[in-house]
């Protein structure tokens, strides 16, 4: 298991901060590349299919002159797919796009919450600046230079990109099943304390407390002699061990 990624820390009323692992320029650029390919493929596919259907033959040439129907049904939707891909999908998929989902990142506010519609649209409006002068030059430079890997749109909308959960429910249960013992938290603390203070307790107290614990968590009285302290301790250690 790798060490936790550098992240954003958000204060909480519980006193335990919410820790969000931040996505860096690499993950963000990778997600963008996937999204770029998806939207180009979709837009081109629409254009090609639309033109083939419009022409009613195997030809991809545009009609001569300005034809309204061809423009409205073929060109316009392809442009809409290409230019509104990010804002529409981020709003509909709650801060995600197919590329972000593939990389395992999503957009949240600096307070760890889901951004509102306004914030998501604003971060996309500022792509105009981030994409200057070419190939997201401004955006990439800002991401490299800022501590939280922010582009101009993120600064304007107060958003960050963080990694999504990498651990599935099944993985958690599998991991837990290997370690879970028979004790609950209170029992585990008592058993641990008892083991720690074993030497400082009088022998009767050691045996009495161990017997009570074993009775409570194993449901049966141990058939051991009160004088056999080593056996009592071994039983207690087995109970406490995951």
């Amino acid at each position, binding site marked *: 298991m790798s060490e936790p990624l550098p992240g954003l820390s958000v204060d909480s009323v519980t006193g335990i901060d919410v820790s969000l692992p931040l996505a860096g320029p690499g993950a963000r650029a990778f997600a963008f590349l996937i999204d770029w390919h998806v939207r180009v493929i979709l837009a081109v596919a629409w254009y090609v299919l639309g033109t083939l259907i419009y022409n009613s033959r195997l030809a991809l040439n545009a009609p001569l002159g300005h034809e309204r129907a061809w423009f409205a049904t073929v060109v316009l939707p392809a442009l809409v797919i290409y230019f509104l891909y990010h804002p529409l999908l981020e709003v509909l998929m709650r801060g995600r796009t197919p590329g972000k989902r593939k990389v395992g990142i999503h957009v949240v506010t600096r307070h*760890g919450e889901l951004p509102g519609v306004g914030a998501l649209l*604003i971060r996309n409006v500022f792509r105009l600046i981030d994409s200057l002068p070419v190939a997201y030059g401004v955006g990439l430079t800002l991401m490299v230079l800022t501590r939280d890997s922010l582009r101009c749109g993120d600064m304007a909308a107060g958003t960050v990109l963080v990694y999504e959960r990498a651990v599935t429910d099944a993985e958690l249960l599998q991991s837990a099943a290997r370690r879970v013992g028979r004790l609950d938290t209170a029992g585990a603390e008592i058993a641990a304390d008892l083991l720690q203070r074993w030497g400082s307790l009088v022998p009767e107290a050691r045996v009495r407390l161990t017997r009570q614990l074993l009775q409570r968590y194993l449901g049966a009285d141990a058939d051991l002699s009160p004088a056999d302290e080593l056996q009592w301790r071994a039983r207690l250690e087995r109970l406490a061990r995951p």
Partner: protein
Amino acid sequence: MSADTANPRERALAAALLARAPTWQQADARAGRLARGHSEDAADAVRLADDYRLLAHDLARARALMPASRAREYLENAYARAHATLHHGAWRLGSGLRRLLVEETPAAMRWLAPYILWTTLIFVLSACGGYALVRRYPDLIALFASPDMIASVESGKLWTQGMLNVVPSSILSVEILTNNIVVSLFAYCLGFLFGLGTLYILGINGLMLGAAFAFVGEHGLAGQLFSFIVAHGCVELSVMCLSGAAGAAIGEALIRPGAAGRLESFRVAALRTGVVLLSCAVLLVGAGLIEGFISPDPRFPLSARIVIGLGYWGLMVALLTGRLFGRRAAPPAAAGP
């Protein structure tokens, strides 16, 4: 320290903690349901608050007992999701859009009022400047208009005449509205350059408008140009001033950030003003359609164009003040004793 290498006490505590994994899963699933708006159950919402405390408690233990474990990672995510759900509520696109149009946009407009006044003044002064310049030095029109446009006006014809014979209205509309939206967005975004980019775009557009009127006026075509512009121009020029106002607000936030700091100030200004831009983009789509279908069409008389222009402007005011979606004017403040 990992649970595998810890002392018996820590191993026992870690094991006891992991026994609660099914509870974490239930809490996470509940938070997910509530976040997506798939649960209207009040009991679920109340239990989320309990889940939040439970996850916080267990996460604190997991961070201490098994910092590099899958369980800690799972808890971090479950806790973050519970936190977001508890503090933000369910994600509902409809109510989000409604809040945007009924509450956030009118509030942003009120906040922007002084900027709108200033940017309108700058735009009008630039237009007056352009008009005065070309009236005094007619040759300067070459700075603002293309040779084709100049030749057309000099031959006694507006460049807009016969436009529909060249390009169909639908294509013309899309070209125009795309251009207008991009210009407005740039006027807004360039506020990022401490407001200078915004002022530049406002100034240039004002100069061009004034210069064009002065030039066509010299050739007796000012009435025709007014007739062409009035239907779509009321909203188009207002939106230009609105985008400029939003950009100017961003510029001021960067120039005078206050105690919060420049980045925070920029964020607040952008979030506050950006919502106005979204309405502006929608309004420009309408203006583009009018400019493509109505403005170049000689069958529409001037009176109809004025009615369309003023009517659409009224719709814009209703949209931006939230009245279009049922927002009522704030009641007057109670009189003092």
